[in-house]
């Protein structure tokens, strides 16, 4: 059942079934779409005008609930400071998150019948752990996951609307949990 295992050589191997690969591909693509800026960098970017620095565009948290969770306001009671932080830090973070998900996506076979066999070194395992976390944050935010989601899932039947999304969330959680356990035993 456990997807990730530590091998004797210090690597972590991951085995993903064809349905797991399909689900991961779908969720990664959806989150990448949310994370990808719509248009060319804004020429009127006030920071660029002021400083001449061209930072990657910072996501607008009001554009999507997932963005407001992945890039939360850094100051709760100081909107101006939060905005300054957002412009300076969140563009780069968004670029890094896109790169992480793109790396994961590239490791997954396109063939819907294929399983994936991952071989991860330390940094590779950290990348997958964080990427899986971002996928769970995005999906969890979209479906309004609460603290009692496991009981909620247990009480649902496969015909219930909403069952599939929570089942996917459950599988992503199991994958991430298995990887963290491997890393913590390392």
């Amino acid at each position, binding site marked *: 059942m456990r997807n990730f295992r530590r091998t004797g050589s210090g690597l972590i191997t991951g085995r993903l079934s064809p349905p797991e690969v399909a689900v991961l591909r779908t969720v990664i693509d959806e989150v990448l779409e949310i994370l990808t800026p719509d248009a060319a960098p804004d020429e009127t970017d006030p920071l660029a005008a002021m400083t001449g620095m061209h930072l990657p565009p910072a996501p607008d948290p009001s554009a999507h609930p997932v963005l407001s*969770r*992945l*890039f*939360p*306001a*850094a*100051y*709760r*009671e100081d909107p101006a*400071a939060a905005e300054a*932080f957002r412009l300076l*830090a*969140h563009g780069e*973070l968004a670029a*890094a*998150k896109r790169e992480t998900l793109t790396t994961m996506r590239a490791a997954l076979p396109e063939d819907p019948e294929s399983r994936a066999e991952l071989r991860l070194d330390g940094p590779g395992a*950290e990348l997958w*752990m*964080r990427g899986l*976390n*971002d996928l*769970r*944050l995005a999906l*969890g*935010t979209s479906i309004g*996951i*609460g*603290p009692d*989601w*496991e009981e909620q899932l247990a009480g649902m039947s496969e015909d219930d609307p909403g069952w599939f999304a929570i089942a996917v969330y459950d599988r992503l*959680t*199991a994958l*991430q*949990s298995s990887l*963290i*356990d491997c*890393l*913590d035993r390392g």
Partner: protein
Amino acid sequence: VTDRQGGGGRGGTLVPERADELDTSSLEQRPWVTIVWDDPVNLMTYVTHVFQTVFGYSREKATTLMLQVHHQGRAAVSTGTREEMERDVARLHAAGLWATVQQD
């Protein structure tokens, strides 16, 4: 913070008996603090792992802070200058934690 298996503890040594270990006396000279807030998605094991890798905290200290987030809804995880705290918050946002800076 959530625990996949349900139920919290993994053994007596993880009980936050030293929750008062967070030294607040230094806040007077270095009055900025990084706060991590509870959320229902991040796994307990993940948050502990992030505190260890981002801050270099021991497993015990990272677990104590994680449990403080879980039970109290928030925890002060680092203190320092404003610039240092903004750097910490950026690293925590990179890891998907809900972190903020404030002056105490």
